[in-house]
């Protein structure tokens, strides 16, 4: 078995709202898979279908080779889930909740639990009501990372964590990957995704718009080039894949589709290069391009 999660053509409506509109997702066993999309694009709905909390209208979904709706209980012993907004019982302490969640899954490693509580600087004796947002997230994270499971489903797990804790989180994910566990990570923090994820899927309006490794995706985007030339540039503007070109005397700035870079460089060297700065596409650019609609206003608003 190589796929931890497979989802094909998933549909889910709430009344007149089509939350999922033919979504596809494939997560390999042992990988950290980024799950990205603007707010309201259907990430949490997909996750709730995968957890058997929602029943899909149509389409296929499999988790660890089984049906998430019918085999929910057996599956959940092998799955740990961290929601983006953890709510706790006001009169239970954090430690009690961690142990409860652990026992409701496959069990808890006490040594790892103690280690995680220390690393996250969590006070497990405080009652649910008295935790801040970040500390409530930590309770759920400690419970998830200390549990003995095969798959972790993390839905914006680091919202409310400070940068130091974000670092602890990233090292935890790296450790989990080394232990061969699969992680589905929904996140808006691009540096986190870039640092952790082997592959990502980007969804918009309930549909998958892009899926693959970050390296693959970079090829689909543009590189910015600024060059000072020895002579006047020649025919650059007419090369395929060149955008936003600006020529001032012998100084050129332009954007080029990364897979069309070759011809541009050849043309530049033909004029003689004095200096050259090339900036690879940033993830932000990558995501903004996918988040924003190619057409229509709605997604344009979302991307802002």
């Amino acid at each position, binding site marked *: 078995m190589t796929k931890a999660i497979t989802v094909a053509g998933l549909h889910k409506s709430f009344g007149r709202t089509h939350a999922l509109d033919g979504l596809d997702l494939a997560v390999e066993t042992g990988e950290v898979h980024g799950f990205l999309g603007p707010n309201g694009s259907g990430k949490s709905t997909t996750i709730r279908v995968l957890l058997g909390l929602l029943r899909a209208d149509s389409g296929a979904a499999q988790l660890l080779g089984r049906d998430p709706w019918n085999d929910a209980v057996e599956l959940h012993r092998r799955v740990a889930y961290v929601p983006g907004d953890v709510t706790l019982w006001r009169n239970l302490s954090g430690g*009690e909740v961690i142990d409860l969640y652990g026992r409701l899954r496959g069990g808890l490693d006490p040594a790892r639990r103690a280690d995680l509580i220390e690393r996250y600087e969590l006070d497990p004796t405080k009652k649910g009501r008295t935790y801040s947002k970040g500390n409530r997230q930590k309770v759920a994270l400690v419970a998830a990372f200390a549990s003995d499971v095969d798959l972790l489903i993390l839905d914006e797990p680091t919202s409310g964590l400070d940068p130091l804790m974000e670092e602890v989180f990233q090292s935890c994910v790296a450790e989990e990957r080394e232990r061969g566990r699969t992680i589905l990570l929904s996140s808006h923090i691009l540096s986190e995704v870039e640092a952790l994820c082997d592959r990502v899927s980007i969804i918009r309006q309930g549909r998958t718009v892009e899926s693959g490794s970050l390296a693959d995706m970079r090829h689909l985007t543009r590189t910015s080039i600024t060059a000072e030339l020895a002579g006047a540039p020649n025919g650059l503007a007419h090369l395929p894949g060149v955008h936003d070109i600006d020529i001032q005397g012998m100084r050129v700035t332009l954007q080029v589709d990364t897979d069309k870079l070759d011809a541009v460089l050849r043309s530049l060297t033909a004029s003689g290069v004095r200096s050259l700065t090339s900036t690879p596409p940033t993830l932000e650019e990558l995501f903004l391009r996918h988040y924003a609609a190619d057409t229509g206003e709605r997604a344009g608003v979302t991307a802002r």
Partner: protein
Amino acid sequence: MTAVTVSATRAGRSARGGQLTGTGTLLRLALRRDRIMMPIWVIVLGGSFSSVGKSFSSLYDTAAQRAELAASMNGNSSLRAVYGPVFNDSVGGLVTWRMVGFGAAMAAVMSLIIVIRHTREEEETGRQEMLSAAMVGRRAPLTSALLAALIADAALALMIVAGMAGSGAGGAGAVALALTVAGIGALFACTAAIAAQLTESARLAKGLTAAVIGAAFVLKAAGDSSTDDASSVLNWLSPIGWAENVRAYADERWWVLLVVGAAVLIQGGIAYALAGRRDVGMSFLPTRPGPATGRISTAFGLALRLQRGALIGWTLSFAAVGAVFGGLTGGAADLVGTNEKTKEIFERMGGQAGLTDAFLAAMVGMLGMVAALYIVASVLRLHGEETAGRAEPVLAGGVSRIGWAAGHLVIAFGGAALIMAVGGLGLAAGYGHELPAVLGASLAQLPAVWLLGGLTVLLYGALPKAAVASWGVVGICLALGWIGPAVNMPQPVMNLSPFSHLPKLPGTEMQWPPALWLTAGAVVLVAAGLGALRRRDVQQG
């Protein structure tokens, strides 16, 4: 920078005059949020006064009939304990006799819900933090919540005055009755306001206030049985006792309303003093740290932990109430003569002529109806856990929906059996005789309680958005049980309540068929509700 300076100045100015800044806006928000709940309360509760009035005027349409009813009611201390003394045998006087305690207690419940909803509940959910960060004075949330409750109580008073006038019993008596009911509502609104300052949990604040209302009701009943004109110390210790002492329609004692008003002001003052001295979201009963490791390992363990406190509170209350009413039972022997009218009414309520048994049967029936409130509250914990988002991570663990729900349902249905058993034991202990018969009678109420619990499970499972309608169903059954016998409600209407189908124990033979049918109905309802729960989406708040 300019903007900051300007708003700082404005805030500084309002800090001098402005502990109440923003009250109007918050009040509009509260009324907007309660735009369905509040009118339902006011119309149903206010309307029940006029419908009881119409029933009395058609049932006892001559002065002689009414006088006979009044005499028979006043003659027996057990009857007085159940229904209170009759001060006047006009239609208005009879409505006051029947409704003033019940109506005042209901107005108190309405006010408590409104006040807690807009104070502690807002703080507990964190919504208050955002409001208080705006231009909202420190005492504005409490003020707007109290004003919302006062508006509801005032609307209720208008409904009562209009309804009584419509039943041909208007005038000063109607005004006194309406002011009494609204005044007790306002009084307990202030009790709720104090409770909201004391604890961080809205549930606990509601429970504390409800316990005070229940204690007031029991004190009134105990006082009624020891004197024939509600003049005992016990009556005067209870605000609901004050309500009957206003004596609407019977040479109204207006000064008693001043006592109510004074209590409103004193309690309101305490609540304001507390509210001004604490942090938003915090309370005067601080949260203690808990254990660093937990022993809860199953969904049932979690449910037990969550419902433990409430179940202990209910059990103690049932034991106490049972003991008090058990102690009053002896009074049933003080029967002054054998009055046909009395017997007839008691037969409708308790089912047969043995008056001691009939009194016990009436008490057991009341415990059963109150236990229905417990079972609905307990079943609806499922709904609360789900909409608050706390069920989701549990269900994402190795727990089936049925397993998760079953944990709470065992406590709801088993807890109902526990409190009825304890209530029956308390009753028998207070009475001092007939332990097996009284305990058996108490437990015989369970099929009806369970049926209402089953109905709640079905509503929750199949129509989660309408789950709170279960309260309405239980409210109707309570009203039928409390008012129905006295106004000679037609049997088909009475039969809508499952309690009407139970044998009137103790004193008669146990009839198993209705008990078994009701129990079977409860099982079917629970099964259907769980089946629906398993098939539907988990709701988000």
